[in-house]
């Protein structure tokens, strides 16, 4: 792993947090009272760790590369294993945090497309929700009128996926098109992949969450997606059923899959078009162009996971005449 080692911020470049108001939250480090303010602390840490990258328009004009990951995140990275080669398609995604309003449509779309079970209040409270995509919301600024930042996060399909190496049965593997695939049949449920996932996007069937017995519910489900049983891990697949359907259609018509032909469920539902999916081997595709923008950054790229899904930094342009 390629950790960087300088100061409180993971990267060595000029920190954006200096140009912003310091979060007006007092961290309470005490023996047991730490979890009294967990949400404030989460937001503080999210900005300190540069998970959310925000700049004003002036800052962007001054330094258009303000959000970019430093070169050494990937250039200095070493691996024992040869890199994957992608001759055909290489699927990727770009998520624009400028567009995202945190409406949660993607979460609902994903849940119904992928037969993700609804687990109920107790299980959610126990930390076992089964959403493949989530919208992380962090706050900054004054407690009375905080700025809210929404960040959709799902499996980022790392090129060097920490989950793949630790699965003892090879139930999560890399596809020739760059997807990190889950093989439900093979999964025995050690949960090591989830522990080792820095993004914590993996979801585990701690109980038999899917209803396998009520016939009236069968019609509710997407027939193209496996209904998972107890004891297996699951996570975002980039809607592989849609990818394969489009590929089969393209093959029948003896052509390549067209850009925009595959839409993931989250992308389809997003009213702001914040999520774009496509072939990153094709430089003309919409997703490739978005990824080439200088606002692009990868979540936790300093870990050398090389996420396929990248985020576009948020730009703010508040009207100085508007006062609260």
């Amino acid at each position, binding site marked *: 792993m390629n950790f960087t080692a300088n100061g409180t911020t993971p990267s060595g470049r000029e920190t954006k947090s200096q140009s912003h108001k310091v979060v007006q939250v007092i961290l309470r480090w005490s023996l047991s009272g730490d979890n009294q303010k967990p949400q404030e602390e*989460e937001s503080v840490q999210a900005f300190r760790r540069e998970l959310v990258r925000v700049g004003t328009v002036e800052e962007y004009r001054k330094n258009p590369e303000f959000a970019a990951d430093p070169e050494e995140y990937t250039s200095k990275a070493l691996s024992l294993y040869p890199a994957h080669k992608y001759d055909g398609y290489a699927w990727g995604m770009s998520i624009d945090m400028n567009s995202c309003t945190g409406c949660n449509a993607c979460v609902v779309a994903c849940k119904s497309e992928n037969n993700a079970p609804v687990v109920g209040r107790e299980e959610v409270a126990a930390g076992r929700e089964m959403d493949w995509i989530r919208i992380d919301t962090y706050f900054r600024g004054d407690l009375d009128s905080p700025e809210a930042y929404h960040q959709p996060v799902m499996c980022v399909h790392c090129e060097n996926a920490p989950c793949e190496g*630790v699965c003892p049965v090879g139930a999560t593997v890399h596809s020739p098109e760059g997807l990190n695939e889950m093989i439900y049949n093979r999964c025995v449920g050690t949960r090591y992949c989830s522990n*080792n996932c820095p993004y914590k996007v993996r979801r585990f069937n*701690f109980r038999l969450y899917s209803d396998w017995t009520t016939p009236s519910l069968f019609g509710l489900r997407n027939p193209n997606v496996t209904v998972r049983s107890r004891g297996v891990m699951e996570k975002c697949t980039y809607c592989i059923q849609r990818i394969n359907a489009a590929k089969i259609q393209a093959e029948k018509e003896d052509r390549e899959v067209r850009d925009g032909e595959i839409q993931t469920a989250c992308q389809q539902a997003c009213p702001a078009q914040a999520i774009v999916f496509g072939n990153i081997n094709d430089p003309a595709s919409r997703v490739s162009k978005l990824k080439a923008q200088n606002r692009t950054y990868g979540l*936790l790229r300093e870990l050398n996971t090389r996420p396929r899904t990248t985020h576009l930094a948020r730009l703010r342009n508040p009207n100085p005449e508007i006062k609260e």
Partner: protein
Amino acid sequence: MDEISQNSTPRTDAPSPVIGPGHSYGSVTDKISAIVLTQPTSKGWWFGFLVSFSLLMVLMASITYLLLKGTGIWGVNIPVGWGFAIINFVWWIGIGHAGTLISAILLLLRQTWRTSINRFAEAMTIFAVSCAGIFPLIHVGRPWLAYWLLPYPDTMGAWPQFRSPLVWDVFAVSTYATVSLLFWFVGLIPDLATLRDRARHRAAKIIYGILAMGWRGSAVHWHRYELASLLLAGLATPLVVSVHTVVSFDFAVGVIPGWHTTIFPPYFVAGAIYSGFAMVMTLAIPIRAFYKLEDFITMRHLENMAKIMLATGLIVAYGYTMEVFMAFYTGHAYDKYMILNRFTGPYAPVCWALILCNVIIPQSLWIRRVRASVPALFVISLIVNIGMWLERFVIVVTSLHRDFIPSSWGMYSPTRWDIATYLGTIGLFLTMFYLFIRFLPMISIFEMRGLVPTRPKTGERA
């Protein structure tokens, strides 16, 4: 064995003997074999056995319920995917290490004081590994498929993924269990023959006779025995280091702050020996009092074990210090947060209790009076056992519960089923131990005979 018996002739530098005065070959054999063969089963044994057996039934019930309902009956969640099961696995497997150290390394180093604690320390190893082995099997989501971690000719052509430390674990732990069991059984054979010869009851004669595998004590038998035990000791010695090293890889190979450190292998091994000797002490002290074995398990033994605990405890303390130091020395933001969170976050009381149990209290072992006090040693050994359990809790839970992305932070708390399963394995361990001290010689008879002071250079084993 010749060297051992020669070494055991009166030493000038020895603080206290490894065997009480006035013993002959006959009295040693009588005293140890009587516990198995002639002494009536005491009420104390029955009481202890029944309590342990009830706990074993709790284990059965909790595993049954687990198989019915799934891992969801435990407190594990996302982000804390491993909880009590893995903590207990590492704890139990660590405890086993003292047995192997005593039986293998101390044998090769010709340490005569190991003799009387060797047998039950090895038994402790096997029982502890049995308890440990349960957890990886039942903690997976689909326990009935756990055998997929084994490389076997699968009709589907599937094969384990050998980059995963969990597969290394399978080999490390199963090798360990096999070698320990063989070593223990081979060491038992001469004593089983003694029991066969002394048994009055017909069933006992037959059972011990079968287990003794035709041992007659001829010179050829002894020669082969010596060779076999040396070979097994040679095989077991690297296992003392390798098993817990591989267990530590489960964590060190991960990317999670608090897991991803190179110090884990040595510090896990030291911790394993630390907790192992604590457990030997916890078991030896009541047994020697109950069966009046003070002549065989002398203060010398207890003091030596206390010294090993002190030494390994210091290595463990060094490990803790280095974790904190490296977090700040590297300046790595996530590691720094991990350390701060450990010592000041929601699980801080656990972490401070660990420091108290593993680092601060055992320092009292520097004082000779503490090492000479049996009750004090017993209490300290219990505290170290608890401390080592807490250490694993801190490593597993506090590292996982707040890792990289704050939105996914969570808390872990065990459910009643987590606790029942843990208590249940303690029941399994104690049940096996009670059966062991009732049906097998808990101290090696023939090796103790070798320690009896005798005219030098005569026949070693009468």
